[in-house]
């Protein structure tokens, strides 16, 4: 009951739920950068929504199944084949012993999720099985997969009913995004017109983009700070602006404290999209008051609850 890695892809890691309640020790959230897509894949196999699965980044891996296994693919747009035949996303697929799964380059979005019936075996560390590469723990030996790795399944399970994600629950991916943000602790350090510029600009996701965070390319933001701000807590989705005026947005593996002014905070309702923002994508930020953003979160939960009971644990 194992899966062999014939080619690892650009950065393929085992991800599950986030690490919660450890940030005061400097332990970041980690977990799937797009937890909604992870949950959709696990849902098709009857797994826990946050069971350990593979997170594929931009260029997919090639895997060989050493036993029959039910799998499901979700996330960004990519071509995939099983035994040489094209396979669909958002559907339970039965892989036979010896079948090879090949996932090509991700064309729209950044990350694809591959879930396995019963879930992957993974090293649990500090409350989660998710890989945190910077410290080398969790997942498979705390790192991205390499050629020759052999992943174990928690149990053999091919009796899964074939399920398909209903059309209305298939996320549409594009290269332009509208993300809701709230003010953060140092938003006041931006001059008024700059706060407007933050939400009136077509930001472009920069080339420096990974699970730690991403650069936002656009106009220079001038913050009245001298680089001496005392370090303060930051979270996935915190937008900081260093002295060079070029803001960046933190993602799931980002550190827990930072010393650059926090000029905005991505609202919880849209934080699951961090994992799909891709260099070159266009982003508009929509200003929301905290209560408006929370109302939007409740509305999103209400939408998803029928297909994904327990959605509140996911996003």
């Amino acid at each position: 009951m194992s899966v062999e890695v014939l080619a690892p892809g650009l950065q393929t890691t085992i991800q599950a739920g986030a690490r919660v309640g450890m940030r005061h020790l400097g332990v970041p959230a980690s977990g799937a950068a797009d937890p909604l897509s992870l949950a959709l894949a696990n849902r098709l196999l009857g797994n826990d929504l946050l069971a350990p699965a593979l997170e594929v980044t931009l260029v997919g891996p090639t895997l060989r199944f050493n036993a029959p296994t039910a799998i499901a693919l979700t996330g960004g747009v990519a071509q995939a084949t099983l035994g040489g035949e094209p396979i669909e996303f958002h559907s339970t697929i039965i892989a036979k012993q010896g079948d090879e799964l090949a996932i090509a380059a991700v064309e729209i979005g950044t990350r694809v999720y591959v879930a396995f019936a019963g879930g992957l075996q993974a090293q649990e560390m500090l409350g989660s099985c998710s890989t945190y590469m910077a410290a080398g723990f969790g997942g498979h030996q705390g790192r991205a997969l390499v050629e020759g790795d052999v992943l174990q399944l928690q149990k053999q399970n091919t009796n899964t009913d074939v399920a398909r994600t209903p059309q209305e629950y298939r996320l549409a991916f594009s290269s332009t995004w509208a993300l809701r943000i709230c003010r953060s602790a140092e938003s006041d350090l931006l001059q008024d017109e700059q706060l407007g510029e933050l939400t009136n600009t077509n930001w472009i996701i920069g080339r420096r983009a990974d699970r730690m965070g991403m650069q936002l390319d656009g106009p220079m933001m001038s913050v009245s700070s001298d680089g001496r701000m005392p370090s303060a807590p930051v979270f996935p989705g915190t937008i900081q602006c260093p002295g060079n005026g070029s803001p960046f947005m933190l993602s799931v593996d980002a550190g827990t404290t930072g010393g650059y002014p926090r000029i905005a905070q991505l609202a919880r309702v849209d934080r699951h999209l961090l994992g799909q923002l891709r260099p070159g994508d266009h982003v508009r930020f929509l200003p929301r008051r905290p209560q408006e953003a929370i109302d939007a979160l409740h509305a999103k939960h209400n939408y998803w609850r029928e297909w994904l009971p327990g959605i509140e644990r996911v996003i």
Partner: protein
Amino acid sequence: MPCSDSTARTIKACGDDLLSIRLGAARDAQAFAEQLRAAGEWQEVVAGIESVVVQFDATLITIDEARQQIAAELAKGYTPKALADVLLEIPVVYGGEFGPDFDAVCEQTGLSAEELIALHTGREYDVELVGFTPGFVYVGGLAAVLRIPRRKQPRQRVAAGSVGIADGRTGLYALAGPGGWPIIGRTTFTLFDPQAKDPFPVRVGMRIRFIAVSAAEAGL
């Protein structure tokens, strides 16, 4: 109970599920964070140098309720803990390839290399905060002349064990990764060991002294 004006100034939303509490001093922030964690009702309670940020679950509690609960905890008061009776000696290889900003810091502060090392190793410090990444340590109490700002452009990667200074503190990078502090040296002291029973050997309240060593002595 409506929040008073002073409470509103102290407790501020920094996101839709994040509230920041301004406390002013690192030891107060640590003490209040510990008190909130003991209450056990929050997703995250993270102390910074001068503030604490609480993340609450907006599906369970409204932002106003969260604010009121925190105000009630503040009203109870909190007691900063005494410093731990532990003095850690941290060996540091200063300058050269291990301290890429060492020369720039000398230039910025007008100190010679010898003076900079003597100043940095010449006193005992307190661990004010752990955080950022597992094992990253914020050491307070740097000499005033060394109070330089962060780099305008953070580095994409600093080496594990890097020793940086910024904003009156020394920062010890347990892991390789992005970082914005000017780097003056490197230590081989184990700051984070995921295999150990206690992966976090350095704790808030411990005292630190830096010892200048050569690369050969440090085994670098």
